[in-house]
């Protein structure tokens, strides 16, 4: 249907403003800022110093590698945990229970991430509820600090991003016709063969989109590593925060920010390439 130019510009202008002013320009600014810095005389100029710092200071790039690795581990654990839950909801639960389970699943994630992390803190810390219960039961004889370590931090990250794995998995599994599983079974396949040859290949798009979102959320998370991780489990976003807010070195912070952005884009691109999908499909 032909539309007037006026209608087109009415739609086009706000969208263009949004994307240009709030997405494109700020990130270009981020890029340029990361290549600027003071020289020996205190004058601003173009430099690679910010990136050189990253590679020469082990604490920076070690944090970077650690963050990437832990985000990958988080994604993998989330996947392992989400798969059976999604399978139960979409294939095993009765249809009436299914709706209720979905609501129960969604509810915690609408509550602020801060509340969820705080809940884990009062559960796990030395004076926390779990320690109190275990002491009362006689399982331990003095309180154990279960918070402020890598395991607690990863569990917190898994917990926070769980939903973004389960929802795409449930929807992709619901689109799997039961008769495919029945046919495989009828043709003699056991449980493992059905998972390997039918369910996992079918769920690939859901797994990809879930994994991308979870990985990105974990990589860019600040709150959970900051509150649940230990003194030694520095997350890369905390480095960025420190540069910006504590040291007020915005150029260095920009370089870090751009590196993080590059890493997440790279991994997402690789994920999409590996599974032969496009971002548009994954998003919808």
């Amino acid at each position, binding site marked *: 249907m032909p539309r007037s130019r006026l209608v087109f510009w009415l739609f086009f202008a706000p969208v263009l403003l949004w994307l240009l002013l709030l997405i494109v320009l*700020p990130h270009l600014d981020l890029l340029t800022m990361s290549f600027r810095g003071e020289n020996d005389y205190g004058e601003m100029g173009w430099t690679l110093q910010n990136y050189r710092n990253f590679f020469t200071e082990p604490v920076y790039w070690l944090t970077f590698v650690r963050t990437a690795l832990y985000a990958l581990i988080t994604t993998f654990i989330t996947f392992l945990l989400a798969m059976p839950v999604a399978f139960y909801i979409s294939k095993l639960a009765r249809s009436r229970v299914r709706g209720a389970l979905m609501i129960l699943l969604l509810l915690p994630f609408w509550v602020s991430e801060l509340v969820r992390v705080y809940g884990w*803190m009062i559960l796990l810390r030395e*004076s926390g509820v779990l320690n109190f219960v275990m002491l009362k039961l006689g399982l331990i004889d003095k309180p154990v600090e279960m918070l402020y370590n890598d395991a607690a931090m990863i569990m917190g990250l898994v917990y926070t991003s769980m939903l973004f794995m389960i929802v795409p998995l449930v929807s992709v599994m619901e689109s799997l016709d039961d008769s495919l599983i029945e046919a495989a079974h009828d043709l003699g396949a056991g449980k493992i063969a059905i998972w390997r040859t039918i369910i996992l290949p079918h769920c690939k798009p859901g797994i990809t989109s879930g994994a991308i979102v979870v990985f*990105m959320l974990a990589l860019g998370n600040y709150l959970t590593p900051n509150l649940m991780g230990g003194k030694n489990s520095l997350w890369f976003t905390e480095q960025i925060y420190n540069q910006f807010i504590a040291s007020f070195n915005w150029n260095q912070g*920009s370089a870090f920010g751009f590196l993080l952005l590059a890493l997440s884009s790279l991994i997402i691109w690789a994920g999409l390439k590996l599974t032969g999908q496009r971002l548009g499909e994954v998003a919808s």
Partner: protein
Amino acid sequence: MIRSLPRGRGYSWSFNAFIILYFMFLFAPLVVTCVLAFNNSDFPSLPWQGFSLDWFAARGPERIGLFHDDQILRSLLTSLQTAVCVSLLSVAVGTCASFLFEKENFRFKGVLYLLMLAPLVIPGVILGISLLLASNSAGAFLDETFGLDFAVFRPSFWLVVLGQFSFITTFVTLVVSARLRKFDPSLEEAALNLGATQFGVIRHVTLKFLRPALIGAGAVAFLMSFENFNTTLFLVGSEPTLPVNLYLQVRDGSTPVINAVSLLLVVGTSLLALVNLYFTKRED
């Protein structure tokens, strides 16, 4: 395996047990947080000292309940104002964007579409710092060339709104587009054929059809804005939002008043989510 295939007793049993454990894992931190809000103790931990509403209603001086804690109430108000602004703004622009991408054809549509999806894969922290940088540059530029000083370009309420708007609009666009795709274009043609103007058609036919999606997207935008932390952290000025305020308090040691706030948030967001769910279910 699935419901129609014979399942062993052990298989069903262990699967059910796993699901129960999973939901316990999901709700444990929230339940503990909410329950401890009523504990008559100065710390958010066990043992249970008796039921008390102090952390909601006490006026001080030793205990200041939630309803008399000016700092929390002020940040709550800020969060509400932010969320209202963000949801209105993002629904308006997001609707334009879905019309643009679903109904119009123009050069570079693919590029613009990818750009629209970009906020999905940009970590929130990066979005925050690049907006901070860009607004700072813009402010400095205007100050130097025109001698004008705009408060908007410094960390402030409006910068937070813009920052949240920049990525929440993407989610709104995806929700509204999904609904718009189900729209039968012949309805528009019929309305034009019956003598409606182009704007009349959009107002009376298309937007009417989209209304449930607009309400749903607005609710999603409200919740996302209300609980956002990562992006907001870098953009807040002197008026912190509730999550940022709570974060500062949790980091520096907590009192059960945070449990009280959490309880309020859990109840509030659950209600909003349920209402939203009810409306979307009814539309189906």
